[in-house]
């Protein structure tokens, strides 16, 4: 029996995703092995088209691999039937996308409570939970607004609140700061740091160095495969003064 506390919450074994055939064959994800521990933040960086978004879709059950295995909390998900897979997506993972993907006809609080309602919670429970989450992301006073009345950074914080609705085992974020200016990026960074500290498991694919720097572990991806892995925890040899041009 393996110890559940050390078992990875998210696991990929030889994960592959191919498109096309013959000369048109594209290996978007080409033999990825990954273990993510509970509470860990992992960032995957790489150039556009390196397969990092496809990888995130495979890990979250939005897409099925051509070969290999995807596991969530000790359960193999790549072979689940459609209904079981849909349920796993609702309850096991929370997604955050670059373009927010909020429902524009629904208010902020309605967007955030939607995953809980879809999972069969009572409207009262769903609303209470949504209000708590909006408070957590600092947007309690925007609950009745439509997304169109919010800034980009605020919309992304709503999307993060929505992703947390069903207390997912892991939050998967695809370029969460890709559409944001510097100030809004700082707000989202602060939120991800807060999630990290609260023990939320996070996998972020990005080419934003700022959000990558918040990770415990950084993986570089090229042509569908992992080429480098770095632990970012621990100290530096320099100080902030040296970086700003102060001597001594």
């Amino acid at each position, binding site marked *: 029996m393996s110890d559940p506390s050390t078992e990875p919450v998210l696991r990929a074994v030889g994960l592959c995703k191919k498109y096309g055939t013959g000369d048109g064959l594209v290996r978007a994800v080409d033999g990825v092995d990954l273990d993510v521990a509970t509470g860990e933040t992992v960032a995957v960086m790489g*150039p556009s088209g390196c397969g990092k978004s496809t990888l995130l879709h495979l890990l979250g059950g939005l897409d099925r691999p051509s070969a290999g295995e995807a596991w969530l909390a000790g359960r193999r998900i790549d072979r689940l039937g459609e209904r079981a897979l849909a349920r796993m997506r609702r309850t096991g993972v929370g997604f955050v996308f670059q373009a927010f993907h909020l429902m524009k006809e629904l208010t902020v609080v309605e967007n955030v409570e939607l995953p809980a309602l879809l999972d069969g919670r009572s409207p009262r429970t769903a609303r209470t939970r949504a209000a708590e989450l909006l408070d957590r992301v600092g947007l309690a006073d925007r609950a009745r607004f439509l997304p169109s009345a919010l800034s980009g950074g605020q919309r992304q914080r709503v999307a993060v609140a929505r992703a947390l609705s069903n207390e997912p085992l892991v939050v998967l974020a695809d370029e969460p700061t890709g559409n944001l200016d*510097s100030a809004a990026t*700082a707000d989202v*960074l*602060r939120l991800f*740091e807060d999630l990290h500290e609260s023990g939320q498991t996070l996998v972020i694919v990005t080419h934003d*160095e*700022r959000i*990558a*720097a*918040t990770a415990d572990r*950084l993986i570089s991806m*090229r042509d569908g495969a992992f080429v*480098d892995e*770095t632990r*970012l925890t*621990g*100290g*530096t*040899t*320099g100080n*902030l003064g*040296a*970086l*700003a041009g102060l001597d001594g």
Partner: protein
Amino acid sequence: MQQEVVLAMLAKEPSHGYELRARLRHALGPVGEAMNAGQIYVVLTRLEKAGLVVCERSTAGGDSPDRKTYLLTSAGQERVAEWFADVGWPKPGLAEFHLKLVAAAAAGLADPLTIVDTQRRELLRRLRDAQRAAMNEPDHSDAALLLEGIVLRLQADLRWLEACDQRWTIRRGTS
């Protein structure tokens, strides 16, 4: 000109001063145009006095500096290895870091991609520290503005390291 740059250029093989100069000019292109032609000899003389290189004179040709061949001592080799491993920033300017990669590849003493990865890891940690410091500042404080400058500069440096990574990956694939 950094002494370590000249030392590392010598790590490939014992060389004449003019050969070192030619290699530097090739690696630096227009960036190195302002470099004084005599500078390399000044550095070589200092390195010799410090015991990091030794100079061998060929018998023919009299006193011309071009008759001297320089080679690293074991102390010089040690200094080069330390320089390859150093992750200080931003003290090695862009040219110095660039020449570090060029010299490491030429000498076969260190993998440029390993140097880039090590430096990137270090800069990401510093970026994290600068960001955390910025987040802990009250909004619109003077110090927050300075920290923003540090963050933006580190981002630019990290993008350049990414470009170094891609370039040296291609170089390795074709060599």
